[in-house]
């Protein structure tokens, strides 16, 4: 599914990733853990650059359009799958069948009541869940999500993560929350100063093992 061999990456001209060797097989659920600045976001970007096809993305800054409704922001995930004409009509008059599909996804993320509200009027946590909803609507073989639950509370984090993991067979999450990483993912990658320093199945690890990374 993913094969990176001695890859490096720079961010704003500064090298942030060194000698990255990473193989991910289909069906794996990966968590990238490590301090902020350890290179998690850059690794997510790097993977996206190598595998942009059939990959859904939840970037750290969401990239939502504030003046569009939640529905339309979610629908943006599927723009390429429809004709431009269909998309334009849908922008003016939401298509009923698409609305129903989006509504189902929003219900799973406890957002259904905001279906037609402009994103600009949502809270930070709600926006984050809209960004997740967009990726779920887009579907695909691989989900890359950069801190997808950093702004939602604990109870909702679990709901959101469950939806993401059941929506995609292969998932790579950047997570700073060790507990969530251990509970939801089956493989943990630890990053430190742009290098992979840990790669292990989740059940072989305890919280203590991971704390050394922080």
């Amino acid at each position, binding site marked *: 599914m993913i094969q990176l061999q001695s890859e490096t990456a720079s961010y704003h001209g500064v090298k942030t990733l060194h000698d990255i060797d990473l193989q991910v097989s289909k069906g794996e659920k990966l968590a990238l853990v490590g301090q902020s600045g350890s290179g998690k976001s850059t690794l997510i970007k790097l993977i996206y650059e190598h595998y942009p096809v059939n990959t859904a993305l939840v970037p750290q*800054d969401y990239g939502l359009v504030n*003046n569009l409704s939640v529905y339309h922001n979610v629908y943006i995930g599927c723009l390429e799958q429809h004709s431009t004409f269909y*998309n334009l009509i849908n922008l003016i008059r939401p298509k009923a069948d698409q609305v129903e599909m989006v509504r189902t996804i929003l219900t799973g993320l406890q957002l259904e*009541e905001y279906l*037609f509200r402009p994103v600009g009027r949502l809270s930070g946590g709600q926006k984050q869940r809209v960004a997740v909803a967009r990726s779920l609507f887009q579907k695909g073989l691989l989900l890359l999500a950069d801190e997808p639950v950093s702004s939602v509370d604990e109870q909702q984090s679990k709901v959101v993560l469950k939806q993401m993991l059941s929506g995609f067979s292969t998932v790579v999450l950047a997570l700073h929350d060790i507990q969530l990483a251990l509970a939801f993912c089956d493989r943990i990658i630890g990053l430190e100063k742009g290098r992979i320093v840990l790669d292990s199945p989740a059940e072989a690890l305890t919280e203590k093992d991971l704390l050394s990374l922080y």
Partner: protein
Amino acid sequence: MDSAYKHSPAWNVSWLFVLLAGFSLFFSDIEIISLEPWQELKRLFMGLLAPDWSNLSEIGEAFLQTLAFAILGVAGGSVIGFLLAQIFHWRWIQVSCAFIRAIHELFWALIFLQIFGLHPLTGLLAIGLPYAATFAKVYAEILEEGDKSALQAVSLDASRVSTFFYARLPDLWQHFKTYTSYRLECGLRSSAILGFVGLPTLGYTLSSAFMEGHYSVVWALLLLFYLLIATIRYWVRPALLPIYIIAAPFIVANDSTISFDNVQRFFTEDIIPAPIMRGESLSESWHWLSDLLINQALPGIANTVVLTQVALVASGILTLLFFPLISTHFFKPAGRTIGHVLLVILRTTPEYILAYILLQLWGPSMLPAIVALALHNGAIIGHLIGRYSIEIQLRVDASRGLNRYFYELLPRLYGQFLAFLFYRWEIIMRESAILGILGIATLGFYIDSSIQELHFDKAMILIFITALLNVLVDSLSRYLRAKLRLRTNVDCRATNDYCTARE
């Protein structure tokens, strides 16, 4: 729970304006009257291939005059405007300035021509007066919104003047400078078109070349004008300004003298309504006034409003087509360069000149006016929105082409777009009125005809009505911007955006 999808207020207002414009189109005469309009247009563009510089002394003289009038008018206007800004909190100053601003430079020129004839004072006041009123307002806003913390730290005993120079001016200097230099660019355009009513500036040479069909001379003049505006930041230097200001009076000076009889007659006879001069009864006066209102003011207002609304919506549509041309989200550098050149030419050419050219080619109807206003204003706002769009960061997986335009960019830019368009509403209306001088039946047409017939009393009333109409549209625009919460960044005044949108 929001159960049904609702469109935003901005969407509804936009459609209201589009419908209004569509309705207005029914009442406008849109046709191409001339027999071979495209043949003539082709001849015009053939002139571009070989611009004619042979008449260099005449062209040079026209440009010197254009420059000198612009520099003196803007310099005088900025000094007076700056003084007025200090007392701009007085209500009657605000009202008078709004009123003076609402009257176009060309109308002022028509008025001063009656008073001073072709004396240079006519041109200087025609630019200086409305510019002073605009400077007063914008300078006052700059003073109002600027950082006042330094001011509060100054001892109360310090004099007003020294407080101003030490605690306020240093911080605000850049804002004043940017705005004033931008206005000099506007002043060049104003000065150029004053030639159309007889002053010795660019418009005069241009219209005579045009009438004689010398299109290669027309292009020589236009190309030089673009060059002048494009290089403005190189030749407008603080160190050079005093030289320009000292030299300019010698350039604009001519032999004509001010006849004080004329001045006196203008104020005591010409502009006094005829029935009063003749000592007619109240009913006769009423008859005179109602005749003026019904047969001139009313059709003039109707046509001005029709032209304004159609031109406003057409400008909006062109803006939405133009802005992607210079946006990094749509075109590579080579494509954007073509877009930039197109937009620079369209926004540098004064809309009056554009309308004049199209009118000569297509014959008198509203069409040339609509096209000219839409091209000029669409290019101005398109440039601003295009530059603004570059600031937007899209996701790496963002869609492309039309999907990107409609889903990613348009929703993000729409508020800014409407704000700029509403700012220009009043400017478009002022221009719509003035284009009447070219023969389209807006208010300017009736004003110009009254002056030709030496009915200055009627002309003054019509100019007064034009000004009221502008003030009305200005407040309507302010109301809509507040209602839709359309705000442009205050900070963008530091750039040219604010000034370009506001004029």
